C-alpha cells in the first residue's frame, strides 16, 4: 500500500511536470526548425533538420542586440538604484523612531494592494511633465520608484533582526548611523539583499506595460516590447519569434536556477509576514 501510494505520487507529479515543461520544449524545438518545418502537420517534437540559423538571424535582426543591451542597462541600473534607495528607507524604518512612522509604513503597505497599472494614467501625465517619456532613464526612474513600498516592507524585517548591541558598539567606536548601515547592517543582510536584487532585476527585465506605453523611439525599446513588435511583424515565422524569445528568457531562467534558494526565501518571507 505504501509503495503503491508512492508510485501514484510520482506519476501525478511527473504528469504535472510534463504539462509545465512541454510548452517550453515545444518552443525550443520550434526555434530550432527551419521555416519549412514550422507549419508541418503533424507537429514534430524533435526537429528533423535542427539549425541554429534562427538564433543567428534573430540576434542580427532589427536592432535586436541593441534591445538586449538596452534591457541589460535598464534592468541593472534600476536594480542598483532600487537597492541603494530601499535599503536606506528600510533602515530608517527598522532602526529609528520618528513621527508617524507606523502611519507612513501602513500607507506603504496599503498601496501595495493597488495594482500598479491602475496608476498608469496619472503616472504617464507626470512622466510627460518631467520629460521622462521615450527615454531609458524614464524607465529606470519608473522601475526604481515603483519598487519602494514592497522592498521597504521586505527589508525592514531583516534589518530589525540585527542586534541592538552592534549598533551601540558602532556608536561607541565613534561610528555614526551611516557607518552602522553600511558596515554592519548591509553586510549582515546579504541574503536579503540578494533576494531584492534578483526580484528587481527579473521584474525590470520583463516589464512590459510601462515600456510599451512610454517608449516610441525604436532605438529605445527593451526586449519585452521588441519581442511583441517582432511577433507582430513576423507573425508566421514562429521559428524566428521563438528563437528571439529563447534568447530573451535565457538570462532569466539561468538566474532563477542558480539563485533558486533566494527566490524561495524571498517569496515565502513575504508571504508569511503578510
Amino acid at each position, binding site marked *: 500500500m505504501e509503495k503503491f501510494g508512492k508510485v501514484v505520487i510520482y506519476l501525478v507529479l511527473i504528469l504535472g511536470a510534463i504539462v509545465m515543461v512541454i510548452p517550453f520544449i515545444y*518552443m525550443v524545438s520550434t526555434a530550432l526548425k527551419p521555416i519549412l518545418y514550422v507549419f508541418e502537420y503533424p507537429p514534430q517534437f524533435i526537429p528533423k533538420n535542427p539549425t541554429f540559423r534562427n538564433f543567428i538571424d534573430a540576434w542580427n535582426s532589427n536592432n535586436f542586440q541593441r534591445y538586449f543591451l538596452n534591457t541589460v542597462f535598464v534592468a541593472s541600473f534600476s536594480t542598483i538604484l532600487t537597492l541603494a534607495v530601499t535599503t536606506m528607507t528600510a533602515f530608517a524604518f527598522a532602526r529609528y523612531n520618528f513621527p508617524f512612522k507606523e502611519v507612513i509604513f501602513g500607507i506603504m503597505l496599503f498601496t501595495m494592494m493597488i495594482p500598479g497599472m491602475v496608476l498608469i494614467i496619472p503616472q504617464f501625465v507626470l512622466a510627460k511633465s518631467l520629460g521622462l517619456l521615450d527615454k531609458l532613464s524614464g524607465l529606470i526612474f519608473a522601475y526604481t520608484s515603483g519598487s519602494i513600498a514592497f522592498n521597504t516592507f521586505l527589508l525592514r524585517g531583516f534589518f530589525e533582526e540585527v542586534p541592538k548591541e552592534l549598533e551601540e558598539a558602532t556608536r561607541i567606536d565613534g561610528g555614526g548611523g551611516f557607518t552602522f548601515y553600511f558596515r554592519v547592517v548591509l553586510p549582515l543582510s546579504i541574503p536579503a539583499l540578494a533576494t531584492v536584487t534578483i526580484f528587481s532585476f527579473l521584474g525590470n527585465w520583463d516589464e512590459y506595460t510601462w515600456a510599451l506605453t512610454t517608449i516610441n523611439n525604436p532605438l529605445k525599446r527593451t526586449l519585452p516590447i521588441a519581442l511583441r513588435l517582432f511577433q507582430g511583424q513576423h507573425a508566421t515565422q514562429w521559428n524566428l519569434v521563438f528563437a528571439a524569445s529563447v534568447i530573451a528568457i535565457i538570462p532569466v531562467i539561468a538566474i532563477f536556477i542558480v539563485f533558486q534558494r533566494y527566490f524561495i526565501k524571498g517569496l515565502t518571507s513575504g508571504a508569511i509576514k503578510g
Partner: protein
Amino acid sequence: MQRYRWEAYLFLIPGLTLFCLWTIYPIVRGLQISFYHWDLIRLEKNIFVGIENYTKFFADPIAILAVRNTLLYTIVTVPGQMIFGLIVAVLLDTKIKGKVVFRTLYYLPVVTSWVVVSFIFMYLFNSDFGLVNYILKDLLHIISQNIAWLQNPSTAFWVIMLLGIWKGIGWNMVIFLAALQNIPQELYESATIDGANSWQLFRRITIPLIRPTILFVMVMLTIGGFNVFISVNIITGGGPLHQTEVVLSYMYQQAFNFLDFGYGSAISYMLAMVILIISYIQIKFLKIESLY
C-alpha cells in the same frame, strides 16, 4: 534612537520622495483626472465634468462586458491555481526524491515573462498546426475538425484563463509548500495513532493550520486576477469585437488609443475601489471564520 532623529530623515528622504511622487501623488491626480475631459496636449482645455466619466461606464456595454470577463477570469483562475498548487505542494511535502527538480520545473512558467508564455500559448492553440488541435483531433479523436481557438471569443478567453492557471501553479506551490513544512510532524503522528486516515489528516490538521496562508494566497491572486492585462493584450488584444476585453485592457485602450484619459482614470479608480473592497471583505470574513 531618539537622539539621532536627523539621521533617520536623511535615510528617509530619497525613498519617501520617490514614493510620494510616484505613488501618492498619482493616486490623488488620478482621482482629479477622472472628473475631467482631460486633454493631454493642451492642459488649458481640460473641462470639469463631475461624475460623467463614471456614469458613462455603467451605460457602456463594452465596459460591462469587460467587467464580466474580468470577474469570470478571477472566479476561474483563482481557485484553479490554488487547487493545483495545493495538490502539488501536498505531494511534494511527502518523502520523495527529486523535490528540487520538481519544484524547479513547476516554477519555470512563473519566472518566464508574460509576453513569451503568451506567444507559446498562441502557437499551441493555433488552429491549423497547433499542438492542441493535433492532440485532440489526430491523437485522441475527441474533435472531428480543428478548432479556431483564438478566433472564437469564448474559446479564446478560455485559452487566456488556462494560461493564467498554468503560469500561476508554481507560485501557489512554493507558498503552500512553505506553509506545509511549518506544520509540526508530531500532530500528524499522534492523529495517525488515533486512527485518522489521510483525508481526515488533511481536512482536520493541514487545512486549519495553513488557513492564514490560504487567505494570503487568495487575496493576492484575486488582486492579480483583476489585474489581468498582458496576456489579453498579446493574445487577442481584447478582440474579436471587444468580446475578450477585460477591465484593464479596455482602460488602456480608452486612455492610450483614444486618449480619453478622464474615462480611463475613472475606470482605473473603480477597479481599484472594487479590489480594495473585495480584499477587505476576504480578510474580514476569513479572519472571523478562523476563530471557530
